[in-house]
């Protein structure tokens, strides 16, 4: 456990060494940003709309009574979407989509000697392969989470429009009532940390793959599992510290 942690930290140190040529690294960063950001937009859009709609319907089911103002449904949906659903569930989904792809990509490069080829050329392989992925993760995952928040709240609106439990006017009023900007800060902090966790852990698992195609699959699985565990753990820590 401590041996792995030490290897992970050393790998990250190597990943952020001065690049051989900035322009080559920059084009890699752009490529990864497109892969992480644009490539994940579809799945994030679909899950966000559904989660927002489900959160609204379930909140309405539990809280709608004559003694509770109907606007509370919008408020609860807003807070739970911004604080938890959008960053955490998006991150868990992205760990599966982006993380497994990164781990298997780097793992395949390892077992087919492509990483050895980089090293023999004098390229800092962790820097070339991992740092662009981490930069793409910490910049694009927060943007995806913002999109997720907007679409989640839109999903709630659609659910209200499609049912008679809460009117869309009450829902919109609930969204704006008692808004605390701190929850957006917490959401952004979570998204940045989750982006780092997914990309760095999965890259680490891929980089130290040893064997063949079977081990590449195992590395991808380990990367996703450890990312999910760390996302939930860091989610708890950030919530405890910031709220």
């Amino acid at each position, binding site marked *: 456990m401590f041996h792995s942690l030490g290897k992970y930290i050393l790998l990250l140190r190597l990943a952020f060494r001065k690049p051989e040529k900035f322009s080559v690294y920059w084009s890699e960063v752009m490529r990864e940003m497109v892969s992480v950001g644009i490539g994940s937009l579809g799945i994030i859009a679909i899950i966000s709309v559904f989660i927002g709609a489900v959160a609204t319907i379930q909140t309405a089911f539990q809280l709608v009574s004559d003694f509770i103002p109907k606007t509370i449904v919008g408020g609860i949906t807003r807070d739970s979407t911004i604080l938890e659903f959008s960053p955490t569930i998006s991150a868990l989904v992205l760990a599966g989509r982006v993380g497994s792809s990164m781990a298997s990509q780097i793992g395949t*490069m390892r077992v*087919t*000697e*492509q990483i050895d080829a980089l090293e023999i*050329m004098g390229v800092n392989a962790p820097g070339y392969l991992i740092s662009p992925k981490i930069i793409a993760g910490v910049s694009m995952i927060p943007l995806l989470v913002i999109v997720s928040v907007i679409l989640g709240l839109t999903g709630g609106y659609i659910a209200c429009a499609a049912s008679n439990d809460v009117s869309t006017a009450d829902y919109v009023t609930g969204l704006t009532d008692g808004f605390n900007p701190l929850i957006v800060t917490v959401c952004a902090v979570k998204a940045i940390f989750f982006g780092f966790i997914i990309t760095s852990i999965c890259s680490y698992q891929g980089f130290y793959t040893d064997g063949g195609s079977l081990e590449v699959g195992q590395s991808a699985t380990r990367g996703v599992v450890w990312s999910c565990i760390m996302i939930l753990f860091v989610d708890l820590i950030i919530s405890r510290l910031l709220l």
Partner: protein
Amino acid sequence: MIEIKDIYKTFGENEVLKGITATFQPGKNNLIIGGSGSGKTTLLKCIVGLHDPTKGDVIFDGENFTDMDFEQRVPIRTKIGMLFQNSALFDSMTVEENIMFPLNLFTNQSKAEKLDRANFCLERVNLTGKNKLYPSELSGGMKKRVGIARAISMQPKYLFVDEPNSGLDPKTSILIDELINELTEEYEITTVIVTHDMNSVMGIGDHIIFLHQGKKWWEGSNKEIAHTDNQELNDFVFASKFMQAAKAKL
């Protein structure tokens, strides 16, 4: 010139290399041969710095490579070209991008200059016009040739080749051997080839080192190999009936 001095390499309890000393001259095909598990590839990886030897030194033209850190090794590494057993081409790049990759990172050439160099290297390995193909679209022999083109793109002083004939038909194997031989002579490259292909040994083996049980068991040229009385080497080289028949005619 590359010198290796008293190289030992241990993995856990397993001592793979047991004190190997040799000198590899420029302009010559230096072959490392031996049976499976004899330590050929481990020795090659120790020389190029993919493994750190447990003990011993690797010296490139008087500079001790073993003592250097990553940054210090970069100037030497840019003079190294390597062809891997499975070519190790970058899957996400085209043939042209693979060849231009080291030029992009380590030179300040213009795009046109780099393209010219890539075209020259492709022409040199008889793959003119294959610039835009991806590795997945190439045959095994073509991949090897692209691997060679990438290896020579930086005009290396040292060329390392790991099992150049594995997975290739005999005719393509000979073409690859001839290509490596031509490049070695033409550019005065210090070439080190790990192989167990007897056609390569007899065809281009200017200087041969035979490894057995992690030790240097024999050293000589392809002209001397047929007349050696070294039992282990004879068992290895003349294992096939074809080679036994060829020896009988000598």
